[in-house]
């Protein structure tokens, strides 16, 4: 069943990217990155099983941000990297800070279970905090380093597919390592952590390859 939900997530992420680009072009993609970053900061704490290994929720969202990053670099140049990173960082951090502040407020005597669940999820919690920090560092690094790798590959082989696949294969492995190590080192044993890195990487490569279709559509789309 998780595979079906994952597929639905992938479809939603890439359809939204196409929608935001069609309506807003470059600005639409920046708003898309802000939207995905905000959502990611609140849903990534859940861990589920794929092929008996644990994965955090939100991998298609991360790949959506990564793909939007590639499209912006391809169409508008490397100068946009800073703005992409600021957009991601601002949305991601602001959402979590506000949710953290809200968890400090005294709950009402009504709807107690929901209020407690809210506080447990978004209040101070070391494991969730590590996930949050791990996500921030790994995705920030992914966005920054991807620009350099993408352009380097593109200079050598000016083909859309090589630039995208090359950057996916290199960057996503480093991102997976950074995220899993920051979040789970010391909590689980080495074999489990290794498995988490590998499955996270493989799944992101698959989603990234699926995302090549919207990349191709959007890059080749003529602006009116």
């Amino acid at each position, binding site marked *: *069943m*998780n595979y079906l*939900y994952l597929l*639905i*997530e992938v479809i*939603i992420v890439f359809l*939204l990217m196409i*929608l935001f680009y069609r*309506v*807003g072009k470059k*600005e639409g993609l*920046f*708003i898309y990155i*802000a*939207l995905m970053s*905000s*959502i990611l900061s*609140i*849903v990534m*704490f*859940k*861990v*589920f*099983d794929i092929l008996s290994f*644990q994965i955090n*929720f939100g991998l298609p*969202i991360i790949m959506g941000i990564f793909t939007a990053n590639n499209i912006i670099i391809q169409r508008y140049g490397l100068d946009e990297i800073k703005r992409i990173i600021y*957009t991601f960082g*601002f*949305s991601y951090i*602001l*959402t979590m800070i*506000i*949710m953290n*502040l*809200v968890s*400090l*407020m*005294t*709950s*009402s*005597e*009504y*709807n107690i*279970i*929901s*209020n*407690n*669940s*809210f506080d*447990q*999820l978004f209040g101070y919690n070391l*494991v*969730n905090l590590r996930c949050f920090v791990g996500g921030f560092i790994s995705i920030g690094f992914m966005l920054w380093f991807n620009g350099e790798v993408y352009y380097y590959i593109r200079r050598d082989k000016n083909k859309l597919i090589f630039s995208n696949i090359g950057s996916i294969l290199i960057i996503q492995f480093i991102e997976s390592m950074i995220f899993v190590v920051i979040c789970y080192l010391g909590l*689980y044993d080495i074999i489990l952590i290794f498995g988490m890195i590998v499955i996270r990487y493989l799944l992101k490569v698959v989603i990234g390859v699926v995302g090549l279709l919207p990349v191709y559509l959007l890059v080749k789309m003529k602006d009116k």
Partner: protein
Amino acid sequence: MSAIVFLLLIAISIGLIYLIHRYFGKSQFYLIAVIYSILSFLMSFKLIKVFGVNINASVIFSSGLLIILYYFINRYGKSEIKRLIMAIFVSTFVSGCFLMLNTFMIPSIYDNNSPFYQNLVLDNLAIVILYPISLLITLLLSSYCFELLKNEDKNRLIKTLVTIIGLMFIDTFIFIYFSYAILIRFDIAIVIALDNYLVKAIIMVIYILIINKVFKIRKVK
């Protein structure tokens, strides 16, 4: 502590709008509109006690969304207003979809957060359904009213404030009353709805007064 955090969030909500007006442009307004819509939706799951009254935490940033709409109507054209409302509604709807997917995914044995997500979303299904609907209705009604008020010459501020107070009544009773009538009880829901209406109307009046001052401040180029 609750009161301090509540006032701090109000300051952040209107403060960010001021900063975007002063130092940035339209696209950054879309950005904070998207962030505010997600924050407002998530905060709607928590009922807080501030100043002795029970308030739905979403009142702060949903008021911020209406102020961004008011700003857009006074600064930009009709096509921008449609885009803004679509961006806000799509953000809210999509965050609801992702929360539902997150809730239904079968968790790992190592996961501790799944019960919290399930309690948050499944116990508040009325909010998940009613909040986006009430938000869309409020935004459409507000845009219509603010457009009409834009052409008023006499006593424009007083007419705006009266309109806001009327709009908050509709918003509060569609969302707050029906949600808590389903989740808790009808009689308690009426009291919560009235408390929320009072607080939200006060917040909106303060925001409108501040934003009218903000319009006079020049942007930094």
